[in-house]
C-alpha cells in the first residue's frame, strides 16, 4: 500500500498518473467520502496488497472450457437420461417458459444419452464418465457445483458473463479484479497471465481490464517461442539492449529531475527497468526443459497427440507461473475454434476434448499437490454453459444455459463436496441454482476479498465484479 496520506498521493501524482483512479479520488475528496480500498502505488501497481480478511487461497488457475462442455456426459451422472435415450422429452420438462433463448428450437424432440460408460470412483464413490479417467483419480479433491446457470445461450454473452460478470462485455475480467484487489506476488512478471492457443468467443474483452488501470490486463504467455510477445527485440539487438536503455534512462533521469514532483516520469523510468527484468524472469518460466522427464511425461508433453501435448505445456506453464508468484492464470482449453461446441457431433467433440485435457489437468492437480501449492491455489474448471440432453441434428447437442456443472479444487475448497443438482435429464438446474455472480463471489471470498468492498469508481458508479452490494451469495458448501 501507498505510504503517506491520500493528499500526498493526489499531489504527488502530478499530471495524471492512473488518471481514472485519480479523478475518482479527486471526486471523492471533494465530497469528503472514504477512500477507495484498493488505492495503489502508481509506481508499483502490482505490489502485494493486504486482503480484506484472511484468505483461504492466494492464487488462481482458471481452466476455461470453451464452447460449452456437456457436463452430464462428463461428471453429472444421469441414469434417467440413459433410460430415456431415443424417447421424446417428457412433457413435464417443457412446461416452464424459458427466459433466455429457447433450448428446444434447434433440437429434435428426442433425448440422447452419451455413449460413454460410467463408474464410481474415489472414496466418495462419485460417478465419472469414462471420458475422464485421469480426473476420476482426483474426484475426491474436487468440489463440484452441479447447478450452475447462465443468462444467455449465446457464446459471447455467456463467456463474458463467466469472465466479467456481465453479458455485455466491456467490464473488467475476474483476473483483473483479483490483481487489482491483491496485486501480485512477483513484481517481475505480469500479475494476470493468459494461456491459449485459441481464446474464447468475444475475444480479448474476456481478459480485459476495461476501466481498471492497464496494469491489471491479462497478458498472454505463449506456450512456445518467446514467452511474452515483444519480450525481446529482434536477435541482432539483444546484445545492445542494455546500453540502448542506459542512454535513454540517463536522459530520462535528467528530464525528470528538471520536472520534480511529476510522478509519471519516475513511473515510466521504473516501467522500462521492469520490462528489462521481465525478460529474464519470463524466459525462465518458459524453460520447460528444466523439468524432469517424469514431470514432462505426466503432463503429456511428448504425447503423440499434439493437441494434448500442447495443452500439457500450458498446464505445466501455469504451475510454473503460480510457483513464481503470478496471482491469476487463466487457460483456454481449445486448440481449435471448435472446443466443446458439439452441435453436429457431440461424441467426437467430447472424445477429442476430453482426450486433450484430462491427463494434463490431472497432472496439474497432482503436481500442485506434490509441491504443496494446491493448499493455496484455487483451481477452477468451468465453461460458459452446458449442452442439451435433446439431440441436435443426428448426434449433436445444442447450447444449454439452464443447468451445468463446474468444479473447484485446492485452496480453501471443501474437497469431495457436491453442490446442487440438475433435473433427471440434466436440462435445468433443480436444487440450489447458482449464478456466475455467486461463483465470482465465492472465488473472491476464497481469496480474502469481500465482493462488496472490491470496487472502482467509474462513470459515477461504484463498479463491482458482483454488481450491486449484497446481490450475491457465496455458493454454500464450496469453501471449507
Amino acid at each position, binding site marked *: 500500500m501507498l505510504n503517506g496520506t491520500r493528499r500526498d498521493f493526489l*499531489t504527488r501524482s502530478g499530471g495524471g498518473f*492512473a488518471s481514472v483512479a485519480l479523478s475518482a479520488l479527486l471526486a471523492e475528496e471533494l465530497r469528503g467520502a472514504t477512500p477507495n480500498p484498493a488505492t495503489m502505488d502508481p509506481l508499483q*501497481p502490482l505490489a502485494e496488497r493486504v486482503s480484506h480478511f484472511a484468505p483461504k487461497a492466494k492464487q488462481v488457475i482458471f481452466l476455461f472450457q470453451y464452447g460449452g462442455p456437456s457436463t452430464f456426459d462428463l461428471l453429472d451422472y444421469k441414469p434417467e437420461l440413459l433410460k430415456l435415450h431415443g424417447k421424446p422429452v417428457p412433457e413435464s420438462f417443457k412446461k416452464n417458459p424459458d427466459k433466455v*433463448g429457447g433450448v428446444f428450437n434447434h433440437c429434435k424432440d428426442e433425448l440422447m444419452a452419451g455413449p460413454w460408460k460410467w463408474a464410481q470412483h474415489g472414496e466418495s464413490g462419485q460417478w465419472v464418465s469414462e471420458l475422464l479417467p485421469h480426473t476420476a483419480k482426483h474426484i475426491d479433491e474436487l468440489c463440484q457445483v452441479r447447478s450452475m446457470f447462465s443468462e444467455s445461450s*449465446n457464446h459471447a454473452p455467456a463467456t463474458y458473463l463467466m469472465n466479467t460478470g456481465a453479458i455485455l462485455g466491456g467490464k473488467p475480467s475476474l483476473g483483473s479484479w483479483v490483481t487489482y484487489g491483491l496485486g501480485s506476488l512477483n513484481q517481475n512478471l505480469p500479475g494476470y497471465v493468459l494461456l491459449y492457443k*485459441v481464446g474464447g468467443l468475444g475475444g480479448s474483452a474476456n481478459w480485459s481490464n476495461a476501466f481498471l488501470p*492497464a496494469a491489471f490486463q491479462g497478458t498472454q504467455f505463449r506456450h512456445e517461442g518467446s514467452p511474452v510477445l515483444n519480450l525481446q527485440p529482434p536477435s541482432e539487438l539483444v546484445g545492445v539492449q542494455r546500453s540502448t536503455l542506459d542512454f535513454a534512462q540517463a536522459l530520462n533521469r535528467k*528530464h525528470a529531475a528538471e520536472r520534480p514532483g511529476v510522478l509519471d516520469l519516475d513511473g515510466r523510468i521504473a516501467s522500462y527497468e521492469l520490462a528489462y527484468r521481465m525478460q529474464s524472469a519470463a524466459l525462465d518460466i518458459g524453460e520447460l526443459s528444466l523439468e524432469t522427464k517424469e514431470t514432462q511425461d505426466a503432463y503429456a508433453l511428448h504425447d503423440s497427440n499434439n493437441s494434448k501435448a500442447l495443452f500439457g505445456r500450458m498446464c505445466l506453464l501455469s504451475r510454473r507461473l503460480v510457483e513464481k508468484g503470478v496471482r491469476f492464470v487463466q487457460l483456454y482449453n481449445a486448440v481449435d475454434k471448435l472446443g466443446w461446441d458439439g452441435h453436429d457431433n457431440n461424441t467426437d467433440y467430447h472424445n477429442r476434448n476430453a482426450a486433450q485435457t484430462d491427463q494434463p489437468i490431472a497432472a496439474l492437480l497432482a503436481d500442485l499437490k506434490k509441491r504443496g501449492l494446491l493448499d493455496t491455489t484455487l483451481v477452477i474448471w468451468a465453461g460458459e454453459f452446458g449442452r442439451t440432453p435433446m439431440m441436435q441434428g443426428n448426434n449433436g447437442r445444442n447450447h444449454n444455459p439452464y443447468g451445468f456443472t463446474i468444479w473447484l479444487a485446492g485452496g480453501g475448497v471443501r474437497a469431495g463436496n457436491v453442490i446442487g443438482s440438475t433435473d433427471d435429464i440434466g436440462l435445468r438446474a433443480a436444487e440450489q441454482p447458482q449464478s456466475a455472480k455467486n461463483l465470482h463471489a465465492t472465488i473472491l471470498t476464497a481469496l480474502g476479498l469481500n465482493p462488496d468492498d472490491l470496487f472502482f469508481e467509474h462513470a*459515477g*458508479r461504484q463498479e463491482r465484479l458482483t454488481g450491486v452490494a449484497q446481490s450475491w451469495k457465496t455458493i454454500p458448501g464450496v469453501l471449507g
Partner: protein
Amino acid sequence: MNHVRRFLVVVTLLLLTRSLRADESPRFVEDVQPLLEAKCVSCHGPEKQEGGLRLDSFAAAKAGGESGPAIVSGDVAKSLLVKAITFRDPDLQMPPKQKLTDKEIATLTQWVKAGAAWPEPVAVLFEDEPQFLASLTSGNGKGRLVTEGIFAGKAALGITPLQRDGVKIPGWQFVIREKPQPGEYRFLRLAWKKRGAGSVMVELASNGQWPDAKVAKGRYVAGPNTTGWAAISVSETAPADWTVVTFDLWKDIGNFTLTGIAPTCDRGEEAFFDAIILGPSIASLDAYRPGRTELLGTESQATGDAFTDKRNPIRKLFRGERLDLWSLKKPRSSTLRVESAATNKKLDSESRATASIDTFIRERLTKAGLQPSPEADRRTLIRRLTIDLTGLLPTADDVQAFVADKSPDAYDKLVNRLLESPRYGERQARLWLDVVRYADTNGYERDEFRPLAWQYRDYVIRSFNQDKPFDQFIREQLAGDELLSAERGRESFSRASTDQSTKASDGHEKKTPAPLTPTTPAEADMLIATGFLRLGQWDSTASIFQEEVRLRAEMMADLTNTTASAFLGLTMSCCQCHDHKYDPLSQADHYRMRAFFAGITPRDDLAISLADEQAAIDQHNAELDQQAAPLKAEQAKLDKANKTRHEELKAKVAEIESKKRQPRRAMGATDSGSTAPATHVFYQGDFSSPRDEVLPGFPSVFTSGPAVIQPPHSNTTGRRLALANWMASADNPWTARVIVNRIWQQHFGTGLVATPNDFGYSGAQPTHPELLDWLAVEFTQRGWSIKELHRLIVKSATYRRRSTGGSPVSELQASRLHYGTQNIRRLDAETLRDSLLAVSGLLKPFDTGKPLWPAVPDELLNAQPAILEAIEGKDGGRMQGWYADPIEQTDVRSVFLVRKRCLPIPFLQAFDLPDTTVSCARRDTTVVAPQALMLLNSPEGVRYAQAFADRVQGTQANLSFDDATQTGKLIDAIFQQALQRRPTTDEVSLAIELLRRHRDQHAIKEAADRAVKLALADLCRAVLNLNEFAYID
C-alpha cells in the same frame, strides 16, 4: 360444490381508511422509508456502507454496523439511529452535514418507540397499469380501464362476463411459500366489487396451468357461484361496494409459482378489480398504501418543474431534495473586472475574452496564495499547441519559424494555421469518436465488419474541419433524417420506388421508406450522421437463440445511456433499474428518454448520392433496362426447347444488368414509420418485466409531461428531432457546459469538471463554476463554434503557462491543480503512433475512406475463434476476419485504422486505448511495462527506429562515426526531428559513445556498413523511447 373455508382474512374496508390515522404512530412506507431513503441510504445502503452499516433492510439495521445495532425495536435509548439523529453525542451525528428537522427526528424516534415495524416489500400486480389488462390475452369477456368510482390510484379494471385471462403473464414467476424468502410471497390482496346480480371470482394459474375445474384450489368467489368451477367461497353475496379480500395462497393452494390470473365475473353487469398486491406477510400488505404508483412519474398530466411546482413527481419522489445540483441551473455569465495584462488601454473584444479566462483563474490562485507560472518558451508552446490541436508534433522547421517570428501576432497566426489544418479535424474527431464509442465492427461472437461505418468517422472529421456549429452537429447525429425533411419543409417522404426490403448488417430485415434524396453534400451528411444511432454493439447471433427482445432492449438502453453521457453528462445508466441514487432522476426518466428512440430501425441502405448524381444513375440504369427489354421479351416468347438461345439471352441480360450502377449508401437509421412501439418501464431493469408505459419526455425535474413532438413528415415519429432540439439549445443547462468542459480537458489534461460524463452529485464539482458558465455562455453566443472555443482557450495566458520550474515542488503541484501552471501530459495512443510515423518519415497522407487493417500476429487472431472461422472461409461472407493491408499502406494516421471490437490493434491498445462498449470521457494514462516492451521491442517500434535512422542518414554513404563533426550533425538531426531542439554537449558525447560502441558490437556479426546502420537505428530507438518524446510540457 364443496366450499372450503380455511384461513381467510376478509376485511371490509372503508374508503376512508387512509385518512383515519391522524394521530397514529408514523407508518413505515409513508413516513419512515422515504426519510431513510432520502437521508441515510446513500451512505448506508447498497452503494456504500459507511461504518459497515446499512439501513435498507430491517435485518441490516438491526444487525447494525461497527458501533452496534442501529435499531432496537421499541428501545429508543439503545437505538444508535436515534442517538445519531438527535446530535446528542458529538462523536455520533447523522446525517453529518445537515441535521434532520425536528419533525423528521420525531418521526423516526416515534417509529422506533412504537416497535420499528419494518414490513417486507410487496409485489404490485395491478394498480393502474394498462399493460396488465393487455397481458390478459384471452377470455370471452371484455376488459377496460375505468377511472370513475375506483378504489385507489387512477384506474380500476372492469371485466364483463365471463373473464379476461393470462395464464403466463410476462415477468410473472412469483414463488409462493409458507416462509417466503426475499422475493417470494404468500398472501394475495385485492379489492373487488360487482354491479348487479351475479358473482365475482378470481382464478390463479400455477406454473402456467389453470386449476383443475373440479378442485377448489386456486379459485376464490364472492356471491353465488354459477360458473361450474370449484372455488373457495369468500362470502354468500357478491360485494356491492369495494371490498378488500386477502387470501393465504400457501394454505389454500400450497407451494407453487404464480404465473397468471383471471379476473372473472359470472354473469350480468361488469365486475371491478383494483389494487392487486402480493406480499410475504399480512403486515407487509397492511403497510402498503394503494395508489402509490403515481410516484413513477408516468401520469399524463404535465406538471411544472420541480423547483416551482410541488406536484412535480421528482419533488414527490425525493421529498424536495436533490434540487440543488449545480448543473440543473442554466449557465449564467457573471460580470467581471477584466484586467489588461500590459496596459490600461481598452481591450478589443477578443483580448477581453481571453483575459476573462485569466481573470477567473487568477482569482482562485490569489485566494490560494499562489502565483501563476510565467509563459512557456516558444518551443514548448508550439509543441503543446500543435499536439493539442492536430495530434501531431510540429516539424523542426515549424518550430524554428515560430521561434524566429518576432511579429506581435506570431502566436495568433500559429493558432489560425493549426485550426485551418485538415489535421485539426482528424484530431478532434478522434476524441469525439471516444465519446460515442465508435468501432468498425459489431462486437460479440462474430464481430462482423461494418463496411459503411467509416463514413460516419469521416463525417465527424469533416464537421470539425468545417467548424460546423455544435448544435447542428447534435441535431444531425440524433435526427439527421428528420432534420433534412424539416429543413426542406414538409415534402413527401421521397420516392416510393426506392422503398425496398433490405437486410442491414445487423441482420434486420425491413421494409421502410427511404428518406429524401440529398441535393448537397451537407444534406448527405445529415443522413450519414445518423450513423451515431448505430455505433453500439450488436449481437447478430441473438436471433438464433430467440434473444432478439433482450438484444433490442440492450441496444435501446445503450443508446439512451450513451446519448445522455455524450451530450448531457447525465448518468442515465444509473436509473435503469431503480430511481437514481444521487441525482434527481426517476427510473421513469430513463425510459422517457429511451422512448425518443423507440421508433428507430437500423438502415444500411440510406442513399447518399446527390440528386443529380442519382438522376444520372437512374438514367444510366433506365437505358440499360431499355437495352435489356427486347432481349427479355424474346426470352419470354422463346420455345423452352431452344436451350442454346435461352442461355445466350440469359447471359446477355446478365451482362447488361451487371453494368447497372448503385447509389452510394450510408449506414444509419430512420424511424420505421409514424408510430413507435410502446416503451415500458422495466421492473428492476429486466426486459422481461415490462410495467408502466411511458411517453417520450425530458427529465421530469424540468417537466413531467410528455415532450411536444411535431413529425417533420408523415413517415417518421419526429421524436428524435424533438430530443435533439431540446439538447441543442442554449437553455439546456448541460449541453454547452459538457462540450466546453471536454474542450478544456483537451488543453489542460483535466476538465473544470473532472468527470466529463457525469455532471451529477456523484461526479466532481466544477473547480471553477463561474468560468465554466462563462465559457458555456460565450460558446453559445459565438454560434456554438468549436474552433472559436479553442481559440478562446489557447490564447489565454493560462493555457500558455510553463509546466514546471521556478517554484518549490509542493507549490507547483498546488498551482497545477489551480491552473496556475500547465500539466505535463503523455501523448495518447494515437498521438504517439502518429508522431512516431511522422518523425520517422513513414506517415502516408490519407484523409478519407475505408479503414486500413495493419497486420497483427497470428496468435492474436487466434484469440477470437470467429476470426479463425473467417480465415478458413467459413464465415459465410460475413467479414468476421482480419483483413491485413500491405504494411506501407497502413502507415496512416491512427484514426483511419480499423477499430475491431474483439481485437484492438495491439500497439494502440498498449497505450490505454479505451474500450468501445461505453462512452469514454477521458483517456487513461497508465504507465506499465508492456508499453516499454511495445515501444522498444515490437516490430513496429523497431521499424520506426530503422526508418527514422534511414531518414536522418539520407543520402550520406560511408558513415563511420569516426568523424566527430559529421556524427555531431547526425545527432543534431535526430534531436531536431524527434524533440525539436538541439542536443546538449553531454547528450552529444553520450550519443557518440553509444554509436561507436554499438557499431563495434554489431560489427562482430555484421558487415561494417550494416553495423553502422544498426548503431544509428539504436540511437534513434533510444530517442523515440525517451520520456521527452512521450510527454508534452
